[in-house]
C-alpha cells in the first residue's frame, strides 16, 4: 500500500508545489494542511525580492519536507542539465523534476529533449522525475533512459482542467503496472485528483489548484482527503458500472402484492 519513489518510502501521495501563494505564511500553512512530504522548488537569479528566497527556504526547512527541485522554464537540454546540476548542489539531493518545455502556450513537454536530458542526468547519478505526456512510447523511452518514476500531465500546467485524456492515462497506467506514476499538472479540483487515483495512479503533484484557491490552506486539506479517498477507493475495488438500474432495496417481501413475490 505504501509508495516508494526511488529509494524513498513516501507516506502522503500528494506532492505540492510552492509557487503562487498569497504569502510565505500561507504557503507554510498549506504545506502543513496538505500533509505533503515532498515539495517542489526551483532555481532563479536573485531578484529585487531576493529576501523572499531566504524566507521561503527557511520555511521549507522548518516544515521538514523533502525538496524536489525542478527545471521549470528550461527549453533546451543544456539549460535543463545545468539547472539540474546547480539544483543538486544547492539542495543536496539527487532528485530532479525534469521539465523540458517544447511549446510556450501549453507548456507541453518536448519529448525529444526530455528523453535526452533524462539519459544524461540518469547516467550522471540523478534520480529523475520527468514531466511528460500520456504518450506510451515516450514513457517507454524515458524508462530506458533510466527513469524509475514517470509524471504524465493531466492537462496543461495551471489550466485546472483535470484529466484531458482519461483514456490515454488509463492506458498508460495499465501498460506500466509496476512503475510509480504521478499525475503532474492540470488538476483543478479535488474530484479530478480522486479520479486519477481511482485509475490507479500512485500520486498527484499539484500547485496552482491549491495556491490559487480562494482559501489555499483549506483547499490543501481538501486535496489531501480526495487523494486518500481515490487511493482507498481504488484498493477497495469499485462496483461494476451498470447501464440499467437495479434496486438496492430487495423486492422480496414487498407489501401489498396480491401474490407473494418469490
Amino acid at each position, binding site marked *: 500500500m505504501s509508495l516508494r519513489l526511488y529509494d524513498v518510502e513516501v507516506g502522503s501521495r500528494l506532492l505540492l*508545489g*510552492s*509557487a*503562487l*501563494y498569497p504569502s510565505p505564511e500561507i*504557503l507554510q500553512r498549506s504545506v502543513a494542511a496538505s500533509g505533503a512530504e515532498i515539495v*517542489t*522548488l*526551483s*532555481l*532563479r*537569479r*536573485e531578484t529585487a525580492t*531576493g529576501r*523572499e*528566497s531566504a524566507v*521561503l*527556504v527557511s520555511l521549507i526547512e522548518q516544515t521538514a519536507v523533502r525538496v524536489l*527541485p*525542478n527545471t*521549470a522554464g528550461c527549453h533546451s537540454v*543544456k*539549460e535543463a542539465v*545545468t539547472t539540474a*546540476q*546547480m*539544483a543538486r*548542489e*544547492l*539542495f543536496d539531493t539527487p532528485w530532479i523534476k525534469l521539465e523540458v518545455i517544447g511549446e510556450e502556450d501549453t507548456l507541453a513537454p518536448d519529448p525529444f529533449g526530455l528523453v535526452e536530458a533524462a539519459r544524461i542526468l540518469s547516467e550522471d547519478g540523478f534520480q529523475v522525475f520527468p514531466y511528460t505526456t500520456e504518450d506510451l512510447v515516450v514513457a517507454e523511452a524515458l524508462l530506458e533512459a533510466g527513469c524509475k518514476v514517470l509524471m504524465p500531465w493531466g492537462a496543461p*500546467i*495551471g489550466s485546472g482542467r483535470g484529466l484531458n485524456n482519461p483514456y490515454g492515462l488509463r492506458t498508460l497506467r495499465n501498460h506500466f503496472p509496476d512503475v510509480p506514476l504521478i499525475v503532474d499538472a492540470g488538476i483543478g479540483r479535488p474530484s479530478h485528483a480522486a479520479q486519477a487515483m481511482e485509475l490507479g495512479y500512485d500520486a498527484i503533484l499539484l*500547485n*496552482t489548484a491549491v495556491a490559487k484557491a480562494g482559501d489555499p490552506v483549506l483547499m490543501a486539506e481538501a486535496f489531501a482527503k480526495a487523494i486518500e479517498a481515490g487511493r482507498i477507493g481504488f484498493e477497495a475495488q469499485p462496483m461494476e458500472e451498470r447501464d440499467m438500474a437495479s434496486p438496492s432495496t430487495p423486492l422480496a417481501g414487498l407489501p401489498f402484492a396480491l401474490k407473494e413475490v418469490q
Partner: protein
Amino acid sequence: MTVTVNGRQLETQAASLAALLQELGYAERKVATAVNGDFVRAALRDETTLNPGDAIDVVVPMQGG
C-alpha cells in the same frame, strides 16, 4: 573587464569566480553558479578564472511548481 552577471553587464577586476562572488556580496550566501551555461560547482570557484565577456549565472532557491 566587462562580464555579464545574471543578464546585467558590469565591470570587475575579479580574477576568479570566487572573487567575483566575494565582490558581489554572495560570499556568505547559499548560491549555485554557472559560467557561459556550464555548471561550476562551489569547490571549483577559486580556480575558475574569468574572461572578458563571460556570462555568469548566480542562482538561489525560489518557489516552484
